[in-house]
């Protein structure tokens, strides 16, 4: 399949879950991708899975130094980009009474500050007609206990989508977001190492969802690809992939 032959994408946070599912779909359809991650094991298994159309790069999405290096690397590898997908996210879910300063700072550094400067540094590489996609989350629009800091970072990101969309109009670059609800990815396991707690939370999330299930990473990936290649008259928008949880 060669639907995306000649297309290039940089995916921050592409070694698992939504980012990996998107990278796979792109590569299967002929695109070249550069994915970033932090764990060496994750980077190696991703490279093995995606094959030669993919570059994997170790990069901390909250580090401005790493972001500068990533911009250089992307320029060397691809010259120009069609898609910049900011999917890297830090997730520390805790009642707000128990949120630590370190946890709070990490979420803002990665989800908001890192995302901001990534677009600043990499937007100049994006082709006319190309696009930036953020992964926000339904926590940015709902009042969900445990998600106070995380939700706020995603609300900041949702705002960036609007302002960057306006700012990048002259360059013909669209900026949109996908907003996942509860999705079946390894992220939950990372946030809740206690397996029983993770299982209980997954059950609660399914029950609390209008469609009574978790979403699949591929469902989010399809929304990313629609926004990137088909939604040529849409900018500043956010597509929820959440079983209706933020809409009903």
């Amino acid at each position, binding site marked *: 399949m060669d639907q995306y032959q000649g297309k290039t994408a940089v995916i921050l946070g592409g070694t698992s879950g939504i980012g990996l599912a998107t990278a796979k779909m792109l590569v299967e359809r002929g695109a070249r991708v550069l994915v970033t991650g932090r764990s060496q094991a994750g980077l190696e298994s991703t490279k093995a899975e995606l094959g030669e159309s993919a570059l994997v790069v170790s990069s901390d999405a909250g580090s401005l130094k790493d972001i500068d290096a990533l911009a250089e690397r992307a320029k060397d590898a691809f010259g120009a980009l069609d898609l910049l997908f900011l999917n890297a996210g830090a997730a520390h879910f805790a009642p707000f009474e128990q949120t630590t300063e370190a946890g709070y700072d990490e979420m803002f550094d990665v989800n908001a500050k890192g995302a901001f400067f990534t677009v600043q540094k990499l937007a100049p590489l994006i082709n006319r007609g190309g696009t930036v996609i953020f992964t926000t989350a339904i926590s940015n629009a709902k009042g969900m206990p445990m998600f106070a800091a995380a939700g706020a970072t995603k609300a900041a990101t949702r705002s960036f989508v609007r302002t960057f*969309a306006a700012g990048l109009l002259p360059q013909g670059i669209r900026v949109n977001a996908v907003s996942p609800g509860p999705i079946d990815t390894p992220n939950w396991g990372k946030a809740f190492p206690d397996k029983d707690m993770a299982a209980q939370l997954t059950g609660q999330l399914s029950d609390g969802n209008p469609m009574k299930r978790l979403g699949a990473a591929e469902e989010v990936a399809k929304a990313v690809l629609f926004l990137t290649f088909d939604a040529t008259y849409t900018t500043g928008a956010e597509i929820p992939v959440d079983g*209706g949880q933020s809409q009903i």
Partner: protein
Amino acid sequence: MNRYEGKKVVVIGGTSGIGLATAKMLADGGGRVLVTGRSQAGLDSTQKALGGNGIAVSSDARSLADIDTLAARVKSEFDSFDLLFVNAGFSMFAPLANVDEASFDEMINLNAKGPFFAVQKLSPLISRGGSVVFTTSTANVKGMPMVAAYGGAKAALRSFARTFAAELLPAGIRVNAVSPGPTDTPIIGKAFPDKAMADHLTGEMRQANPMKRFGTPEEVAKAVLFLAFDATFTTGFELAVDGGLSQL
């Protein structure tokens, strides 16, 4: 191409503009489409354009009797089907001071009441996993002079997308909307037979749009088909196809 092979679709208001563009995309992809319209000339040219994959049916989208007849026709042609695209709509432009009762009623009957009963009568025929898509409008979330009744009717329709989404969850049917901004279709020409006035209005709308252009019916059609067949974890949502007009 057989992307929509096996899919059966009903398009209410499918003989021009967005409805026709969507019907064509489906038929080209191997889907079977039943489209409705009122003008015999429109129905004839649509039947020709869609060929063997299309059925063009005369039906007044405001008439509950016609909706009942349509449901019977759909059942006999398709038995069950996958997408109900309620696209029939019309805009009347008048300052608040000049709106008479008849035009107010017309806006509500065509753009809100007709779609309400169309979904009531036709959704029992939609297969599990299928969907309903409404065409709303940027006018439903912005304060746009001259289209108060139209905007209100489209806001009602957007609300129906949420409530029907909630009600049709047990049936496994998703309900979403596309919200076009200024789109290159006959709707403005029909509302303004005076060409000079129509040109003036379209010029203003183009300038006011962030992307400084109209959208194409195909851009809206792609969003409809994304919502219909790929957005399997999205319901109750309104997707803007408007150059950023409602988002920035």
